[in-house]
Every structure is written in C-alpha cells, then in structure tokens.
C-alpha cells in the first residue's frame, strides 16, 4: 500500500486502498487541515511534493484549478495516493486525534 509522508511533521502513514489522504491520516490518528472533507471548500489544498494521486470523484474546477494542479497542488480530502507520496502541510501541523471512520455496511438481521 502507498505510504503518505507529511512535511514538515515527517509523519508517515499507510494509505489503504481507495482511501483519500485525509481519510488515511484520520485512520492513523492525525487531524490535518481540512473543513468540508467533501472537496468543496479548498481548505485542505496542499503541495504534493512527490508521487501521484488520483481523484475518484468529480472535482469543482473552482476549488482546484488546472493551473493549481500543474503547479503541484492537490486536494487531500479527495486525492487518493497512487504510489508513495509526500505532501507539505505548511504552518498547520498535524494534531493527534481518535477518529471514527465510516461504519462498514451493517449485516442483515439474522433470519429466525
């Protein structure tokens, strides 16, 4: 699985398949800088220093423009690492949290 490294904190976490950068950090107990977590506000926008990411859901051009993408910015709440990546978090360092990920689908009620 891809490894996410966050500068300058030098935190390293694993990105489980299909998980975004923000989700992967949350699962590993880190609160990065974000607000909506749904690709709408741009709060989490960060430089992608190394590696590649993919976007599995449509992005608003107004939130992450083509120019920003080619300048190396990514949207961590929507970006899924393709290989090992390094992102910068600037002045906003990571904060340790205990976060609950989305619930797995509930098993069907057992039949009598």
């Amino acid at each position, binding site marked *: 699985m891809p490894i996410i490294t966050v500068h300058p904190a030098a935190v390293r976490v694993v990105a489980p398949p299909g998980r975004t950068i923000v989700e992967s950090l949350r699962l590993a107990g880190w609160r990065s800088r974000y*607000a*909506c977590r*749904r690709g*709408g*506000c741009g*709060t989490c926008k960060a430089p992608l220093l190394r590696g590649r990411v993919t976007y599995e859901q449509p992005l*608003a051009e107004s939130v992450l423009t083509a120019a920003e993408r080619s300048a190396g910015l990514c949207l961590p709440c929507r970006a899924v690492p393709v290989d090992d990546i390094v992102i910068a978090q600037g002045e906003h360092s990571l904060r340790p949290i205990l976060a609950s990920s989305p619930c797995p689908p509930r098993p069907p009620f057992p039949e009598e």
Partner: protein
Amino acid sequence: MSVIRLGYVHIRVTDLARARAHYADTLGMDVVAEEANRVYLKSWDEDDHHSVVLEEGGVGLVKFGYKVTGADSLADLENRVAAFGATSVRMSKGDNVGIGDGLRVTLPSEHTLELYADVEYLGTKVGKLNPDPWPRDGIRGIGVPRINHALITAEDPAQLERFFELALGFRPAERLVGGDEPDDLVGSWMFCGENPHDIAFVKGPNGKLHHFAHQIDDWSALLRAGDVMSMDDVPIDFGPTRHGITRGGTIYFFDPSGNRNEVFSGGYRTGPDFRPITWTMDQAARGVNYTHREIDQEFLSVVT
C-alpha cells in the same frame, strides 16, 4: 413588507447522484421534478413546488429565490431596486420549473436573487384538513420540515445591508461590527417577516455561499439530526450547540460536494418594531457558538 420568506436555494454539486442521496435520504426531502442535470426537492411541510435545486457541475450558489406577497409588489420592488442603482431583469413563467413570472436581481454582492409571487402549489405531506403533526408514513432521515434562511458573503456588508433595507424592505435583527463605528459592519442578520433572520451575510468574497439552513423543531430534533448525520457519515462543521446571534440551536454540516448546510431550531420572534442587537468582534465567537466561545477562523472563510 412584500417579501415573505426564503423560497428556494439553487446550488451546484459535483456529483448529482450523491447530492440527491444526501438531500433526499439524509435530510429527508422529496424529489418533485428532475431534468438531465437538475433535481428539484421540497420538504414535507412546505406547500410550494420546491425549496432546493441541485445542478450538476461545480459547487456553490447558482441563485436563490424569495417569495413576495403578489404580482403587484414585483413592480414596486423593481422600482426600488432600480432606485438603489442595482440591476434586475424580468423573468418569465417557465424560466424555473414550477415558478411563475418574477424579477431576477443582481445584488451589490453579485449574487443572483429572484423574487416571485406565483409558484406551483403541491401542498404539505399532512394536508390542510385535520392534519397530523408530522407525516405518519413519510419521514426519511432527519425529515426536515422546511427551509429557513441563507447566509452569503459580501465584500461590502454595509452596502448590502442598505440594499436589503431600502430596496427589499428587510430589517436587521443582529449586527456584528468591527470597531467603534456602527458602520464598520462585519455581518448582518436580517428579517422580512418575524423570524430572527431570513437572510444573513458576513464579510467575504462576493457571490459566495456560506450556508443555507433548514428549520427543525427543537433541541431534541437537533440531537436526532446529529444521530442521522453520524449514521450517514456526514462531515460536521460544529454543533449541536447554541448561537448567541439569533439564540437558535444549530448543527453545521457539509453536503457531499462541500456546500455547507445547517439545521436550525428555535430563535426568537422579531417584527417591524424590533430594535437591532449589536455584537462586537471580541464577542464574535460567543455570537456564533455561545456554548463553546471558540470557533475556527475557517468557519468564517470557508465558503462555496
């Protein structure tokens, strides 16, 4: 005054199917009309055709509509908008699904606001004859009964407050001021009926949406709404808590495209003789979140 209330909010969404699931299954609104790239929804206790329109492509506000008392008031409002120096154009029945003739106004803050009197009547889910207090067989998710208000951002809140007051007949209920001068306006919460607010705006970029809100019954409805948000993994901005401004109870949360929603309960009653309340910036955090007295700086800057 001739403006009655917020009628509809028309927003952009990045993924129509996910947005539809959020507004229909989590908030519990009913889909009343569909086009190739748009979904129209109403809440169970609303009479009029729709109160939310979702349009695929991007995020943020396309426009919003306020209902007025009659077609004659549209001509009066058109004159007052022109006298203020703002622009408007007439819109025709059919420009919006279910909405009749009206006036499309470009606010000084560059938002598009539509005024209309005629709208297709669909009726509430409980009817008007000996109704139940809520629909016995028709609440999904939170089950929001109706839309309540919108909060937008404007580069010049003082100018926008004057516009809503002089052109549209709104009055300020609460004002957030930056310095010693009452004109150094950071935000204003304005009403056209007897709500604490029907429109609000804070200083920020023109043309942007901070949030729109659905009204729900009370504090226990808020807590139950929070349960549904957890079940559906909806990102919470903050809450449940109480606002100092409007005194309402609140949860702020995000739709699947990152547009901010609110469920709002309570709030006091205003009216034509209501004298505005002033908040100063040193108490702004208490004004927004009375319980916690602390908000992220991003609460004011995160818009779509």
